[in-house]
């Protein structure tokens, strides 16, 4: 027996410690040195899954049915194996779209539907009440045990004398102080997370301390406990799977159902969603948590069975049969004089309960505020009410927290007596399990629609109420029991625990089966009945494809919104819900990012509207934020075709961008080649001129040489300039083409006479093969001559000196005239052939690259193609090169 003041003082001190830790962590976070950005802290924060249920309920369950307490922890272990694929996606989605609760998540996915958000909130609120009641019951019995000894039942009595009520109120106050000091649009509570992590450590250590005490203090070893238990007929079944009530068959279905239920709950309980998704700091922490959290669960469950068996053995042998197994963690130390340990154990249990309540209350109150109350308020007050609402969400949350605890207490009074702790908790599990189809389906299936989610959730919840909630109240005597046994109005088929005549299942499995079956079935069926709306389709894309659209390598995703907005109005909105400071900061940031001097200069485009809406979502939930923004902005409704088009445009824009980039690069290359080519002759000209200027006494021969070189380079330069201009004119379509009737034989003769001197110098011979007469060709004579001269001079550059041979061949047919110029030079290697017609590529050996501009062939190609023809090269190394081109008699008109 411990004195009540001692217990109270210790409890209070511990809670103050938690509060201090939270305060410290919050201060550190504000200073930018977050304490909780650590995978271990993240893992420990998940330990909030273990509540007073684990502390007291598990032991009680083990004492009556052996290993059946375990599925509740095996389920989460299996769930965490899928953490990396599934949980991480949730976190990414939540981070990307600023989702701060389960209701937000589901509502946002299905088109930012307010109705859906409200439904989810109601389910969460009602569903969580039994769980809260469970905590209160556990603490109440624990406290009673510690202060008045075993066998003291809960005093009951009038409610105003019930200490549990005051405890509930105290917890409410504590929670308010913890989590509603200020509004953080990201809904992060660093202090809370730090405190919860500490709390997880405390409860683990306390429980293990009791375990060690029982195993090696009260008995010699765990082995001895088991040996003794095995020797007793009434305890031996507890070591197997025999199940409850002496039924020797293993109720595999029930085991499976419990595991499945726990697996879903570890994510969908509001407090779990809060710490796993909303409070997550870094996605990569999920990796550590996926094995470390199951490890935590294993450790905290290690001593459950020994403690249970030890308690049964101990109290039976000491003749205190009837000690409530659920309080063995307290009664065993107490009965053996280890008062300190008993107090520690109580603190551990208290820790577990408060942790749960704090996080759960904060999560649920956020949902109620954002998705039930604020929308109602907004609708009542009207959108034109400019009153500052930035303080309202906080006030609403505080009220909700108090209400939640009071309602929990109410459930505790109404239904708490009849049930074991574990059974109460399972009712809550079954409620939140209803979120699974809509939420998981929404993350992986683009076909899920709002109607489907509403139908599934609604039906699932209704069935849950009917098959679990009502019976629990009836069994505690608050509802007439005939409806349980004979069905409502005597309809046996509608008996709540044997619906449609399905017998043979325990009530939990039965309820789970029906509710999930109908939930999933309706979700799928109704979703498929009608195509998703434009908004739903857009959100589906954003959610299901979140990995493709975020993170490394993701392009800026198109914003699915079209309309007109007014910056001033958006500012007003921000001020109204975020407060003046936050709004100013937000818009100043935007102005800075866009390079505008003042925010008024920024255009109110889709991105800005989306940004404001996202920020508001942090304060009032995404459904409300969407409604509020939509009210002040002229939005054009989007059809699914529009969405597709937006996506199309986005990808087209990306493709066009890429093309522009490569063209830009080409242009840069060309420019730098041209400048290089121009500067080279200029360099010689300038250098020679300066040398002559600086040396008046230079001898005449030297001077003459230099002047000669200057002249040659100047010529080269002007040739180059002309060609570049020519090229530019032709390419841009401004070349002036003067067509006339041309006799090709005469043209060839002209070209040869122009180059006769050059051929003679080189020692090369040229022969012409052509028909006697050719038709007249209509083309630009000068340009055509240019091409011929280019090919001839190229041939001349590469033929071997002294015995070069060039052949000019002219042939005609009905379609076109063809001219080929072949030489007996070294030829061109196959890998270089494609580059021959590129600008500034010059073939030949590096050492004796002949003087040329590198533009001759490209220009020739342009000319020939303008005349409707084609130019080509045939060559094999060592066998000379043959350039040819054809000129159609009737080319297609080519537009400049």
């Amino acid at each position, binding site marked *: 027996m411990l004195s009540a003041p001692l217990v109270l003082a210790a409890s209070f001190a511990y809670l103050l410690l938690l509060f201090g830790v939270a305060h410290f962590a919050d201060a550190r976070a504000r200073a930018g040195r977050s304490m909780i950005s650590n995978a271990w802290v993240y893992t420990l924060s998940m330990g909030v899954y273990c509540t007073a249920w684990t502390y007291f309920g598990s032991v009680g369950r083990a004492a009556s049915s052996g290993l059946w307490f375990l599925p509740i922890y095996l389920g989460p272990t299996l769930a965490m194996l899928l953490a990396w694929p599934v949980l991480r996606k949730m976190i990414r989605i939540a981070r990307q779209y600023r989702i701060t609760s389960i209701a937000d998540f589901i509502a946002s996915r299905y088109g930012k539907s307010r109705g859906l958000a409200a439904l989810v909130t109601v389910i969460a609120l009602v569903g969580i009440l039994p769980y809260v009641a469970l905590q209160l019951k556990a603490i109440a019995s624990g406290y009673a045990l510690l202060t008045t000894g075993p066998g003291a039942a809960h005093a009951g009595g009038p409610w105003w004398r019930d200490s549990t009520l005051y405890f509930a109120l105290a917890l409410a106050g504590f929670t308010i102080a913890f989590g509603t000091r200020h509004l953080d649009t990201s809904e992060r509570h660093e202090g809370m997370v730090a405190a919860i992590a500490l709390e997880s450590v405390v409860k683990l250590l306390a429980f293990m301390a009791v375990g060690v005490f029982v195993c090696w203090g009260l008995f010699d070893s765990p082995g001895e406990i088991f040996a003794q238990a095995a020797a007793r007929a009434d305890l031996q079944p507890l070591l197997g799977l025999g199940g409850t009530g002496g039924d020797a068959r293993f109720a595999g279905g029930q085991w499976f159902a419990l595991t499945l239920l726990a697996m879903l709950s570890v994510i969908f309980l509001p407090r779990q969603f809060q710490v796993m998704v909303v409070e997550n700091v870094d996605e990569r922490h999920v990796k550590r948590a996926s094995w470390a959290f199951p490890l935590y669960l294993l450790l905290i469950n290690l001593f459950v069975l020994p403690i249970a068996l030890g308690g049964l053995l101990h109290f039976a042998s000491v003749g205190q049969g009837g000690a409530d197994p659920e309080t063995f963690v307290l009664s065993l130390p107490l009965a053996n004089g280890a008062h300190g340990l008993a107090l520690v154990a109580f603190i551990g249990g208290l820790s577990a309960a408060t942790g749960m309540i704090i996080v759960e209350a904060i999560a649920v109150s956020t949902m109620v505020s954002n998705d039930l109350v604020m929308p109602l308020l907004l609708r009542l007050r009207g959108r034109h009410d400019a009153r500052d609402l930035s303080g309202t969400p906080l006030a609403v949350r505080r009220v909700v927290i108090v209400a939640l605890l009071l309602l929990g207490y109410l459930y505790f009074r109404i239904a708490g007596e009849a049930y074991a702790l574990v059974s109460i908790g399972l009712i809550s599990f079954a409620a939140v399990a209803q979120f699974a189809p809509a939420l998981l389906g929404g993350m992986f299936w683009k076909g899920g629609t709002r109607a489907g989610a509403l139908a599934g959730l609604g039906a699932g919840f209704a069935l849950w109420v009917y098959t679990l909630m009502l019976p629990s109240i009836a069994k505690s005597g608050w509802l007439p029991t005939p409806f349980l046994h004979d069905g409502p109005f005597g309809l046996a088929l509608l008996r709540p625990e044997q619906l449609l005549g399905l017998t043979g299942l325990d009530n939990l499995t039965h309820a789970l089966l029906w509710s999930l079956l109908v939930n999933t079935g309706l979700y799928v069926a109704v979703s498929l009945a009608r195509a998703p709306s434009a908004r739903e389709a857009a959100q589906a894309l954003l959610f299901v494809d979140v990995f493709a659209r975020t993170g490394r390598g993701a392009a800026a995703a198109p914003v699915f919104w079209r309309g007109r907005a007014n910056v001033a109005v958006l500012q007003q909105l921000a001020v109204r819900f975020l407060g003046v400071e936050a709004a100013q900061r937000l818009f100043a940031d935007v102005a800075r990012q866009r390079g505008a001097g003042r925010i008024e200069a920024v255009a109110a485009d889709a991105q800005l509207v989306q940004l404001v809406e996202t920020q508001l979502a942090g304060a009032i939930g995404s459904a409300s934020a969407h409604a509020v923004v939509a009210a002040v902005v002229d939005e054009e409704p989007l059809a699914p075709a529009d969405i597709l088009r937006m996506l199309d445009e986005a990808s087209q824009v990306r493709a066009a961008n890429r093309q522009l980039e490569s063209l830009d690069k080409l242009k840069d290359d060309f420019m730098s080649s041209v400048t290089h080519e121009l500067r*080279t002759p200029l360099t010689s000209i300038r*250098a020679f001129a300066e040398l002559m200027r600086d040396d008046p006494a230079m001898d005449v021969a030297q001077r003459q040489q230099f002047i000669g*070189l200057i002249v040659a380079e100047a010529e080269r330069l002007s040739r180059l300039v002309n060609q570049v201009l020519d090229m530019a004119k032709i390419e841009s379509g401004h070349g002036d083409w003067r067509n006339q009737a041309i006799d090709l034989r005469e043209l060839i003769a002209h070209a040869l006479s122009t180059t006769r001197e050059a051929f003679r110098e080189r020692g090369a011979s040229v022969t012409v093969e052509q028909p006697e007469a050719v038709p007249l060709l209509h083309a630009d004579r000068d340009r055509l001559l240019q091409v011929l001269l280019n090919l001839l001079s190229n041939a001349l550059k590469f033929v071997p000196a002294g015995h070069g041979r060039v052949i000019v061949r002219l042939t005609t047919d009905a379609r076109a005239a063809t001219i080929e110029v072949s030489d007996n030079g070294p030829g061109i290697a196959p890998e270089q052939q494609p580059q021959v017609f590129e600008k500034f590529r010059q073939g030949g050996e590096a050492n004796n*690259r002949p003087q040329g501009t590198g533009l001759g062939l490209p220009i020739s190609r342009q000319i020939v193609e303008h005349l409707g023809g084609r130019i080509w090269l045939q060559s094999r190394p060592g066998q000379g090169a043959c350039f040819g081109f054809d000129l159609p008699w009737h080319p297609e008109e080519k537009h400049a």
Partner: protein
Amino acid sequence: MTKHVLIADDEANIVISLEFLMKREGHRVTIARDGDAALDAIRRERPDLVLLDVMMPGRSGFEICQAVRGDESLAAVKILMLSAKGRDTDQAKGSALGADAYMTKPFSTRELADKVKQLLGG
């Protein structure tokens, strides 16, 4: 003491003008007309200064600069890069690779002579 200057450029006329200029300054001159020949000549002759053109067939001036600077035994060879490209990025690249100086073409003969004197005198 007469210094040995290596001129590495593939443009014949530029080589002529540089050769004249360097001889006027009293230096001994050798010539290389492409990248590989230039690198060979540097390694063989260990000139005091190399007038290195960037755009050469075979190895580019940048590659040669890198190779020379990567060789401890050639640390005493000064490198003056000449290029028709005058963009800041190219100059920075040259300095980064270890060139002692960088001049754009067309250059002023006086400036070039001064720079050469600076590199060889100091």
